[in-house]
C-alpha cells in the first residue's frame, strides 16, 4: 500500500467496542497529563525560593479548583498507567487478543486510586 490515511474512518459499531473506550481514555488522560506536566514542574521549581517562598506559592493552590484538579489528575495518571501497560502487553507480549481485563483493571484502579487519594488527604 503506497498511501494510507492518517486516520481511518470508524463507525458507531467500532466506537461502541470496549477497546475504543480504552483508546479514548488513554488519549484524554494523556492529553490532560501533557498539559499539566509543565505547570507541575513550574510549581516544583518554585522551591528555588527556599522553604518560605516555596510554601507561599504552594498556599496559592489551597483552593478547591486545584484540589479537585489534583484528585482528577491522580485518577487520570492511574488510568494512563494501567492502560499503557495494556498497550505494551498487546504490542510486546504474546498475542492474547485485546486484553479486555486490562481495560477493566484500568477503570477499577482509577476508581481505587481516586478513593485512596480522598481517604489519605482528608
Amino acid at each position, binding site marked *: 500500500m503506497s498511501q494510507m490515511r*492518517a486516520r481511518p474512518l470508524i463507525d458507531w459499531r467500532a466506537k461502541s467496542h470496549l477497546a475504543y473506550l480504552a483508546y479514548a481514555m488513554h488519549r484524554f488522560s494523556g492529553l490532560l497529563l*501533557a498539559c499539566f*506536566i*509543565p505547570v507541575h*514542574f513550574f510549581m516544583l521549581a518554585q522551591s528555588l*525560593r527556599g522553604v518560605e517562598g516555596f510554601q507561599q506559592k504552594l498556599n496559592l493552590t489551597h483552593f478547591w479548583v486545584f484540589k479537585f484538579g489534583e484528585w482528577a489528575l*491522580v485518577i487520570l495518571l492511574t488510568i494512563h498507567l494501567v492502560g499503557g501497560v495494556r498497550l505494551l502487553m498487546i504490542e510486546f507480549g504474546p498475542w492474547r487478543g485485546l486484553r479486555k481485563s486490562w481495560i477493566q483493571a484500568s477503570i477499577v484502579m482509577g476508581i481505587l486510586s481516586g478513593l485512596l487519594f480522598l481517604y489519605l*488527604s482528608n
Partner: protein
Amino acid sequence: MTVIKADMRVLQAKLWYAQRISAMILGLCVAIHLLIIFYAIRGGVTAQEILGRTRGNIGFAVFYEIFVLACFVHAPIGMANILEENFPKNRFLKLVPWALALLIIFIGSVAVVSLFSGGQV
C-alpha cells in the same frame, strides 16, 4: 485525503519505538511516583516536608531526572500523534510538541535541581 510518505513512515516507526521504550521506563516511574504521592499527601503537603525529603537526596534527584527525561520523549510524541490525526493540515500546530518537549526538559530539570538544592544554588 491525508497521505504519509515513505520517509515519514520510517520516522513514525522510530517515534513509535521511542515512545514505547520511554513508556516502559515511565511505567516503573509512575508506579513509584503514585506510591510517593499517597505517602506524601497524608495530612496535607507542605514545602518543609517536600524539601525535607528531596534536599541533598541524590537518589530522589536521579530518579526524578530519569522521570523527566522519559516524559520529555513520551509526552511530545503522544501530543504530536493526536494533533496530526485531528488537525493534519495545520502547520502551526506542529510546533506545539516541540514547545512541550522544551518546556518539559527545561522546567523539569530546573525543578529537579531546585528540589535537590532546596533553593540554595
